[in-house]
């Protein structure tokens, strides 16, 4: 686990994962893949984000969100998952908290799926394969807008 001191101070750059008040953004990762959960977690924590929870299907994700609320700033949401898919979970989270910041992360980039997610209130949509730059860029976009 990296701390704020691990970051070089020469460029005075603030780590992406820190909100303007200096506290870390709190993230819930919903993905049925252990690999992806770890991958996203790795990218985010290295930038100072705090992963406050992980869930491996939509239902679990929804439950975790309700449990964590309001101490959660961001959700990354997979789409193809057992029990409840990510789009349904997104819809339910938005019903529960219309200000929720949810970012869809999926191997599927189908137009209608992207459109539907954005219409339902997702802040962004990232198509896999993931790389660090892509993930951070999109997440920052949805946190700052």
């Amino acid at each position, binding site marked *: 686990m990296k701390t704020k001191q691990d970051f070089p101070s020469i460029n005075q750059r603030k780590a992406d994962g820190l909100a303007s008040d200096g506290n870390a953004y709190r993230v819930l990762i919903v993905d049925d*893949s252990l690999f992806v959960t770890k991958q996203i977690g790795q990218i985010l924590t290295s930038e100072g984000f705090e992963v406050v929870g992980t869930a491996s299907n939509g239902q679990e994700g929804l439950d975790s969100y309700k449990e964590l609320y309001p101490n959660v700033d961001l959700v990354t949401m997979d789409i193809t998952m*057992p029990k409840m898919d990510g789009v349904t979970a997104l819809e339910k989270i938005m019903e529960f908290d219309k200000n929720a910041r949810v970012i869809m992360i999926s*191997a599927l*980039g*189908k*137009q*209608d799926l992207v459109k539907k997610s954005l219409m339902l209130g997702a802040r962004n949509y990232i*198509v896999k*394969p993931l790389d*660090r730059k892509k993930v951070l860029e999109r997440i920052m976009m949805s946190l700052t807008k």
Partner: protein
Amino acid sequence: MRVEYINPFVESAYNVLKEVLSVEIVRGELYLKSTSMPVLGVAAIIGLAGDVEGRVLFDMSKVTAIQIASAMLQSMEMEPIEELNDMGKATITELANMITGQAVTKLHNLGFKFDLTPPAIFTGDNMEIADTGVEALIVPMDLPFGKIEINVAIRERN
């Protein structure tokens, strides 16, 4: 298998493998097989639903699976694996998921509507998957880690 389905799978497999593993990939000659039995030892399966029924099976040897998973993990500064543990399996299924997802996305843009089901992975030397009466397209990919045979069986809903 419908002709239009072939290229999206071949391209996605090539692109994703290249992007994720950053290694030289040699595409093998495509062919048809009358059985969809995995033969190499590790098989990740993703189901397809929608306008069609079918599945995509990623078949590789255990050694290859371990090397591929390790390479993917190391690319994100994670520990490589020595054996095919849960992390290894999750890594391979995710690879399968990314390839199939990209293929389905391409197909979608061509007007073919289908969906994915969550992946599953099987390992073992004498694996048997009861899947009779299926003709599969085999997309062989040769990697420095060994070969992956992508076995695509899709049937139109009549």
